[in-house]
């Protein structure tokens, strides 16, 4: 069970907002994390706490294929991203590198900035402690659960090799 605070962002949060291309001359997670969400909210990284959640609208992570985007969020300490929907490459990348993502339109709509959330990744249950609401995200297909359980695609490959 993981607990943290919600940070809200809008629709179509693109990968240039998550990690601007000007920082992509490195792929070091810690360096990337320092600039996470910088062009959406330059102060966010100094305000957020390890273990917090990003709650966003439709099409989170649209744009480029840069894996640096989920890596930056994961390294910044984001526990999970809850959104109405995710862009396809971001969705793959998040699973492949082990950043938990939850697709749940109702939760993404109703959760307010600053709400305290508790999320159970195993069954996709999202509890809003502040408003006392409970939501259920769509569970991952078993195939993806295996990748997540192994800690990402590379670890899964290593274990089956």
């Amino acid at each position: 069970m993981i607990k943290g605070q919600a940070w809200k962002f809008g629709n179509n949060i693109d990968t240039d907002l998550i990690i601007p291309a000007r920082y992509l001359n490195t792929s070091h997670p810690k360096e990337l994390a320092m600039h996470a969400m910088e062009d959406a909210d330059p102060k966010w990284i100094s305000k957020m706490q390890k273990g917090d959640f990003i709650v966003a609208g439709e099409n989170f992570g649209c744009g480029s294929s840069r894996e640096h985007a989920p890596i930056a969020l994961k390294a910044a300490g984001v526990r999970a991203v809850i959104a109405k929907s995710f862009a396809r490459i971001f969705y793959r990348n998040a699973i492949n590198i082990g950043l938990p993502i939850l697709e749940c339109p109702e939760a993404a709509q109703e959760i307010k900035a600053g709400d305290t959330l508790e999320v159970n990744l195993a069954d996709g249950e999202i509890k809003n402690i502040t408003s006392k609401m409970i939501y259920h995200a769509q569970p991952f297909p078993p195939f993806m659960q295996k990748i997540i359980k192994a800690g990402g695609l590379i670890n899964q490959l290593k274990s089956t090799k």
Partner: protein
Amino acid sequence: MGQTISEKILAKHAGRKEVEPGQLIECKVDLVLGNDITAPPAIKEFERIGVKRVFDRKKIYLVPDHFSPAKDIKSAQQIKMMRDFAKKYKIVNFFEIGCMGIEHVLLPEIGAIRPGELIIGADSHTCTYGALGTLSTGVGSTDMAAAMATGRVWFKVPEQLKFVYTGKLAKWVEAKDLILYTIGKIGVDGARYMSMEFTGPVIRKLSISGRLTMANMAIEAGAKNGIFAADEKTNAYLRKVHAGKGIIYRSDSDAAYKRVYEWDVSKIEPQVALPHLPSNTKPVSKCKKIKINQSVIGSCTNGRIEDMRVAAKVLKGKRVHRDLRLIILPGTQEIKLQMMKEGLMETFIKAGAVVSTPTCGPCLGGHMGILAEGERSIATTNRNFVGRMGHPESEVYLSNVAVAAASAIAGRIVSPRDL
């Protein structure tokens, strides 16, 4: 039930007779691509897997194009990592400066792409190759690493969308306008996780270069891929670049589409996508008062010789506005050479433009034309997100080549008709 081109290619590569939207499948890939941003993390992950060799040293393409020629020490390190990796694993297709180009302009030009193939690239605009009847799609670095080791990748079979374009395009209306118009209609997630199939009389007449422009921006509607049925034009192109034939698939007449869009495009004007989304489109005549500081012509969307010819047509004998910088980026060395042969270089330089070596450069705010706070650029590129070309308070307006060239002369956004 009939199948679409995309479904047939996926089925073939998954070793199945047919596939259905929503199915998770594992496919063999024909080509794996990476650039100087995405390959370095992929290389690190690849080394972690612990295999001794890549799945096929001829089928991996490494193109440092984003921050190349290396713009700073960190970029130089990234490119060096690719170079060393290519050497170590004897990868044939590594493109150093001198023979490089923007990946998605380069690969079709050197005959690396054929119809019916399944291609993945750690770059979202890998979808460009759909222009040749190929299923190609962007993935992340981890997917690239796994594919370099195994030659395989997992997919969810996408739902299918069909776009039918009828009528006749007006003067100065290009393929770019068709795709901007389409994204304006369906939105940046209008094709999220789906295939876009482009068809109709207008498409049949469209050049391969134009089809590459359209397929390139399928990702801007959220699509997994954009695809065109290969035809005579495709075959002629494949012969020209010595690519070989490939396998030509057609969508069955009873193939199932989630939705079919049909538009008569005779009346559309050149389109401009205003900040900060490619779907934020307007006809150019509605943008007249917008002053701009820069115009960028190039990128994987519009950096081919055909684009350069359109730019030259507009710029010939003219001067760019004194308050504005015009930056022209040919997609590859070959294109630059052709520009020299045709006298386009001279036209551009005389007009007051800067002509660069092939690179992604300002398209992603890398180098070679970064915007300051409050500045505006019109660009033939594909994204106008916040901060895409520089300062978070700068703005990018997307357009076709003719409009970007005309606007460079006028200093504000105009159609070539208004010059």
